[in-house]
């Protein structure tokens, strides 16, 4: 047992539901007690979904505990089969129902006899994997199910084409990223064969094999499917995330090299090779504004500013690299909650940050933030709230997210437009450069008394009135930090009364 207030990744069945309900005409039945269908609310509210979420529960109640589900699950499957006529019904256990150890596989087998839709039992262990891992596995499972099933047509498309794997419901900016990837591919003269699973028809999954190779934009979900396809059908894949100018360029190079490679394998040498280096150069220097922005003098003020990054492995790693390589900003700590992917993450950010943090405990990150006091945080909604309490600005770069992160306007994180968006996000997270100086010179906008919210407890330190006056001259957005630092200094040196002199001493001590 462990005490928990907050989790970064949800329970396994949420991952399964996210994948399954992204497909077209796939219905999921949860073997769950009343009230576990909260996923429907999330999808309906966060995604502002217009259609009913294709998820129902086969309710586990006292009768089920006493007698087992018996016919109930099978009945529910056949009722859904008649009502909705889905192509596929996915049956998923939940944390609770998996303890019952009912033979759900057997229910699936028996239901198959009377239904016209395909039926699949989600293969996830609720006590060993989280939402992310379960989604990855479910996607692989559904793809494998249809590729095993069909008589396979391995003929490749005439023009170079790809599958994009891992765009799905409730993903962080997935819809926008997807459009941006499409734009890039179109420029590179590459066709899109299938998008999986968002709005994909399971009956068409056999067409996957027509593509020349696969693209996995986010490594959390889709990697298992891509590896399966590589192993069984010799389809190569690219799992680099085109986030930030440098990685986008690298992504384009890899894509184009792979096209060249496949051309010779498929004997399609008549297709003209595009000059991708010229394309990258053009886009980086003139179409995207991010490269120029970081050279412009306004961005000079960002040099060496201290930031902290936390999120899923994909976004946290990419963001760290962008901050350091493309903006010249210091990352004091980069972290992820994807513990299962810790090695990859370490390898990615090694050398770009002072400290690497792999944890699922939000209090640990909160403490590190209050310890380092970075000028800005790039994290999830949880870090945003920590930032609020400490008066540190935060840009949200990764799930878990709220409804305000499901934006109506076009906000990709990937590709060249994504680079623009990220540059804006970074810049707007810091207090504007000139404002910064002016505040310092003129002593801030406000003359309100010192705000007392803080994380550290005030243990009987007395502030002399002249010191309070001095404190009020300090710009509002750094005042709390100065106050905390001074108190930290006073406590260390066993000073009870804080005078103006103590404040200056503290500042000097900090500078040295």
């Amino acid at each position, binding site marked *: 047992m462990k005490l928990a207030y907050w989790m970064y990744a949800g*329970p396994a069945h949420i991952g399964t539901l996210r994948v399954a309900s992204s497909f077209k005409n796939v219905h999921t039945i949860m073997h769950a007690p009343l009230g576990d269908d909260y996923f429907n609310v*999330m999808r309906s509210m966060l995604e502002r979904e217009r259609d009913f979420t294709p998820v129902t529960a086969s309710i586990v109640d006292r009768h089920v505990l006493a007698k087992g589900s018996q016919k109930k699950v099978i009945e529910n499957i056949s009722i859904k089969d008649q009502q909705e006529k889905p192509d596929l019904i996915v049956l998923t256990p939940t944390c609770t129902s998996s303890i019952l150890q009912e033979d759900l596989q057997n229910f699936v087998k028996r239901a198959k006899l009377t239904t016209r839709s395909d039926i699949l039992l989600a293969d996830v262990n609720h006590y060993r994997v989280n939402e992310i891992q379960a989604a990855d596995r479910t996607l692989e499972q559904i793809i494998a199910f249809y590729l095993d099933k069909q008589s396979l047509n391995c003929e490749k498309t005439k023009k170079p084409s790809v599958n994009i794997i891992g765009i799905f419901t409730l993903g962080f900016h997935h819809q926008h990223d997807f459009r941006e990837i499409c734009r890039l591919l179109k420029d590179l003269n590459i066709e899109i064969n299938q998008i999986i699973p968002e709005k994909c028809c399971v009956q068409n999954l056999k067409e996957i094999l027509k593509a020349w190779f696969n693209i996995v934009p986010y490594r959390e979900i889709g990697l298992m499917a891509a590896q399966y396809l590589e192993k069984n059908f010799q389809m190569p894949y690219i799992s680099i995330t085109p986030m930030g100018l440098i990685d986008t360029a690298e992504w384009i190079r890899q894509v184009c090299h792979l096209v060249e490679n496949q051309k010779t394998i498929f004997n399609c040498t008549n297709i003209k090779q595009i000059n991708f280096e010229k394309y990258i150069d053009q886009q980086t220097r003139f179409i995207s504004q991010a490269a120029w922005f970081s050279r412009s003098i306004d961005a000079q003020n960002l040099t060496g500013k201290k930031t902290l990054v936390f999120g899923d492995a994909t976004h946290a790693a990419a963001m760290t690299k962008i901050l350091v390589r493309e903006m010249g900003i210091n990352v004091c700590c980069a972290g992820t909650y994807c513990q299962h992917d810790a090695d990859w993450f370490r390898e990615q950010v090694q050398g770009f940050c002072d400290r690497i943090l792999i944890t699922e405990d939000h209090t640990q990150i909160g403490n590190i933030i209050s310890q380092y006091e970075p000028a800005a945080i790039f994290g999830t909604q949880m870090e945003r709230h920590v930032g609020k309490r400490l008066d540190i600005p935060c840009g949200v770069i990764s799930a878990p997210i709220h409804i305000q992160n499901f934006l109506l306007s076009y906000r990709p994180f990937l590709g060249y437009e994504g680079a623009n968006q990220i540059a804006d996000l970074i810049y707007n997270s810091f207090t504007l450069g000139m404002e910064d100086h002016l505040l310092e010179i003129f002593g801030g906008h406000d003359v309100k008394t010192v705000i007392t919210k803080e994380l550290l407890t005030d243990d009987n330190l007395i502030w002399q009135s002249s010191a309070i006056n001095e404190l009020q001259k300090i710009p509002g957005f750094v005042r709390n930090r100065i106050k905390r630092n001074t108190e930290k200094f006073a406590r260390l040196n066993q000073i009870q009364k804080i005078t103006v002199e103590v404040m200056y001493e503290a500042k000097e001590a900090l500078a040295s």
Partner: protein
Amino acid sequence: MFDLKFECETGNYHTFCPISCVAWLYQKISDSFFLVIGTKTCGYFLQNALGVMIFAEPRYAMAELEEGDISAQLKDYDELKKLCLQIQKNRNPSVLVWIGTCTTEIIKMDLENIALKIETIIGLPILVARANGLDYAFTQGEDTVLSAMVHRCPEYFLPQNQQSSLVVFGSLPSLVSQQLTKELEIQGVNVAGWLPETHYEELPALGSGVYVCGVNPFLSRTATTLMRRRKCQLIGAPFPIGPDGTRAWIEKICQVFNIQPKNLAQRENQIWKNLKEYLSLVKNRSVFFMGDNLLEISLARFLIRCGMIVYEIGIPYLDKRFQASELNLLEKTCNEQGIPMPLIVEKPDNYNQIQRIRALKPDLVITGLAHSNPLEARGIITKWSVEFTFAQIHGFTNVRDILELVTRPLRRNNNLKELGWSELALNNRF
């Protein structure tokens, strides 16, 4: 007994898990700490359903069960003791409430006994409430917590003057419980206490000679416990929701205490008069309750009195004895308004309900968030039902708030109707 029609469907409906009661109970009982003993699923639900509250250092937490707990490799007693000591050290509450979940039911964790043992060691009262989705829906969670609390109330001794005492049960925001207390005081009825109060130490005394009366329709278990275990006398009254309900509630209590209520009819009429602008909006409009929080009968009765037509009252669970007065009043209201009796559907099936909504095309559907947006996209106006549980809806003073909620979607759509985009779903099956 009634001319009302009752039906029972499959129970395939959407509602909140009863553990959600911690959200309002930890705020009500300000020196408590709620520990939900369950899995990641429970935690994820609370985290998402309670939204920003999570970030405000709430006085609740999950005791998240891991594989070792499920397979009994770890001792529940040791694990729980460890966590409770940690909570005591960090938060120092006056009472710990353990919320049992589906998982603790299935693995048959003996929470009541473990609580007794740990209670004596750490010197802190521990209440156990089995608010799980196997047995209960949404607001019934509060019912399980309050009925556990009944056992902890001090003993009541009949005073010299032999006067009986009144205890009101049901968790309401302090402001609202004060308003109701005042209404009764005006009539000369003294409220000896509320279950729960804002502090655990202030729990009211119970025993024979104490009359109890509920303010919410989902408290049937608490009522039973009060009667059977503490020998209290239950005043069965309609619930103080809407001016009609509030008046009937006060009248019933007065009747028990042999008091002739004063100016009550006047007070009710005055409230109705103040509602004119809202009533003109709702008159003759039709409503469909999909059902998820057990407030449905009382709300439907009030809306019928407002001049609305109710097609169907979906409800997770109906205790016909506890709600008898409310059902009576509903029937009476229908007759007086001259409208047909609504169909009451226990354990509804959401799929079937959507087919009925499609056929009936009601002016307003009161439903959970899972169906709201999809129905709106099909041109059906909806009101999110959970808001009724969190808003202040009890007593004379708060009637306006109920109608504010009910009419908000109607007013919004009045404002937008010129645009002609009321149906926005592609697959328009309505």
